[in-house]
């Protein structure tokens, strides 16, 4: 393993290649076009398919077709592009197809801007499409973690036969950091893909579908996929605790780029003698609800602060987790503004002084 300096977008692309046997379908959009540009060069070298689709609607559906063969397929896009994939995502969740979708979020709503944001949390975790389904949602906070979670994403997609969403923001996509790629992607064994569409040779025909006109059959499909969601809740909750201790006066919940900034703030305040802990959800769905509840309930915690690059989305889940046991505050900037450590720090100090309550 050697450390190389890479842009987040390119590192994600390379990570996908290292996940093995991947194919890519996408439509360009800032701030993640480098993913596709990198793959346009690299995939032909490793025998992977690269298709620039005519639109994100087509992308979602090309993924649908390609994933049904059991091969590893993925795309990358940014917020408006991901909105256009919602119908296909709902279909793929219903048809239980493994697929990895990278969303390098930008400011919204609408065309918004191209600068970093975290305002697609709801869309990602609650399902922007119709029907009862869930995506596994992973949120890296560094280029290295983007690499690791992209590779993990392919694994989890196959393990659960479910779409996996890796969401970063423009900052993760655009910045360069040193990364290491494992020499070999060491992956736990996966179940055989006996559902893969390969032609009905020596077996009964297989059908990949989300259509169940009989309501009992459709309900059954929902029950099956929801059983998987329960398994995910049991097995796939990931988070990081940073400087969480019995001295903390406040618990911060924050993810991705925003969490990194909070770490700087926590370091700074620690030097000033103010102890703050951070719980950084890495899996946004399943959400570390119980872990937050437990941390927030500790007697030393006065308040819980959620910091997001949005008008406040994850804070609803934090609120639900905390169950009113501590005040839950929110701080966020939107539109592409990445809050500076100074503003977060100021907000924390104000809150701890009791000058500001929700």
């Amino acid at each position, binding site marked *: 393993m050697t450390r190389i300096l890479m842009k987040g977008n390119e590192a994600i692309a390379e990570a996908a290649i290292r996940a093995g046997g991947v*194919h890519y*379908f996408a439509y360009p959009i800032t701030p993640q076009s480098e993913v596709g540009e990198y793959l346009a060069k690299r995939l032909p070298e490793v025998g992977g*398919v690269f*298709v620039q*689709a*005519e*639109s994100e*609607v*087509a*992308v*979602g*559906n*090309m*993924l*649908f*077709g*390609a*994933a*049904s*063969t059991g*091969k590893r*397929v993925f795309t990358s896009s940014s917020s408006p592009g991901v909105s256009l994939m919602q*119908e*296909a995502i709902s*279909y793929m969740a219903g*048809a239980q197809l493994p697929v990895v979708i990278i969303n390098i979020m930008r400011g919204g709503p609408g065309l918004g801007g191209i600068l970093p944001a975290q305002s697609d949390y709801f869309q990602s975790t609650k399902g922007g499409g119709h029907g009862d389904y869930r995506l596994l949602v992973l949120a890296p906070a560094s280029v290295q973690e983007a690499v690791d979670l992209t590779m993990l994403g392919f694994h989890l997609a196959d393990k659960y036969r479910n779409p996996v969403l890796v969401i970063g923001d423009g900052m993760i996509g655009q910045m360069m950091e040193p990364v290491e790629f494992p020499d070999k992607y060491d992956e736990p064994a996966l179940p055989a893909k006996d559902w893969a*569409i*390969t*032609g*009905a*040779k*020596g077996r009964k*025909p*297989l*059908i*990949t*579908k*989300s*259509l169940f*006109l009989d309501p009992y059959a459709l309900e059954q499909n929902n029950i099956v996929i929801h059983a998987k969601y329960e398994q995910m809740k049991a097995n796939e909750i990931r988070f990081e605790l940073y400087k969480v201790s019995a001295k903390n006066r406040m618990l911060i919940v924050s993810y991705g780029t925003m969490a990194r900034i909070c770490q700087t703030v926590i370091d700074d305040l620690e030097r000033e003698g103010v102890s703050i802990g951070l719980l950084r959800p890495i899996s946004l769905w399943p959400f570390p609800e119980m872990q937050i509840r437990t941390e927030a309930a500790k007697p030393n915690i006065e308040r819980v602060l959620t910091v997001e690059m949005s008008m406040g989305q994850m804070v609803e889940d934090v609120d639900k987790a905390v169950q009113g046991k501590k005040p839950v505050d929110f701080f966020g900037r939107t539109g592409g503004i990445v809050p500076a450590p100074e503003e977060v720090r100021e907000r924390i100090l104000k809150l701890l002084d009791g000058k500001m309550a929700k």
Partner: protein
Amino acid sequence: MNEVKDSATTITFARPQAFSDMVTHYCPGCTHGIIHRLVAETIDELNIRERTVGVAPVGCSVLIYNYFNVDFLESPHGRAPALATGLKRVSPELIVFTYQGDGDLASIGLSEIVHAANRGEKFTTIFVNNAIYGMTGGQMAPTTMPGQVTSTSPYGRNVEEAGWPMRICELLSTLRTPGYIERVAVHTPQNIVRTKKAIRTAFQNQIDRRCFSLIEVLSTCPTNWGLTPCEATNWVQTNMSPYYPLGVFKKPEPRIEV
């Protein structure tokens, strides 16, 4: 004229192997059934059942996968060409066909079919043009005839407001990328025979890894046209075929062997 000598009793026409034994959900006389059978017969004849994958549309033929002994994907409305692209690109050894209605292909899915054709995706599309949205209860399609009364053109299709019917073969045949484009019909036995040939050519093109192929089939919807099945076949002849001329619109250049 071929002669097949045989002194025993032979079955000269029966349900194809690629067909399942289910009774279809189609209305009596709906020619979706004929087109299904022609595809199944072609699959049998080309001996490709075990490597064929169909992509079902949303439309009356949404349940087509129940009637074939081949693998199938059920696509979102209009997106079958995108699914087929994904499928065929990562598994080029499979024989992939989409089966799409006129609402599915010419309305919501127009972009997907034009771009697939333009990229020269090497799959086969069976495009069933019945001038209406059958499944949802007879709304106007882009292919609905001028003056035709449908549930969303209760005063007849007004070309001043809704435009003229779209002709997909004409549209696609302007593309520079090689492809095979033909329009056929199934309202008489003679036409059915010709349709069978066209479908066979389309699949053969794919087996030869040659080009994208689309066969547009003029079809009936007795139910939503408010006609008997026999009247419906006449309506194809009188109303549709003058506006939708039958024939080959585009052929790939002859292959030069190297």
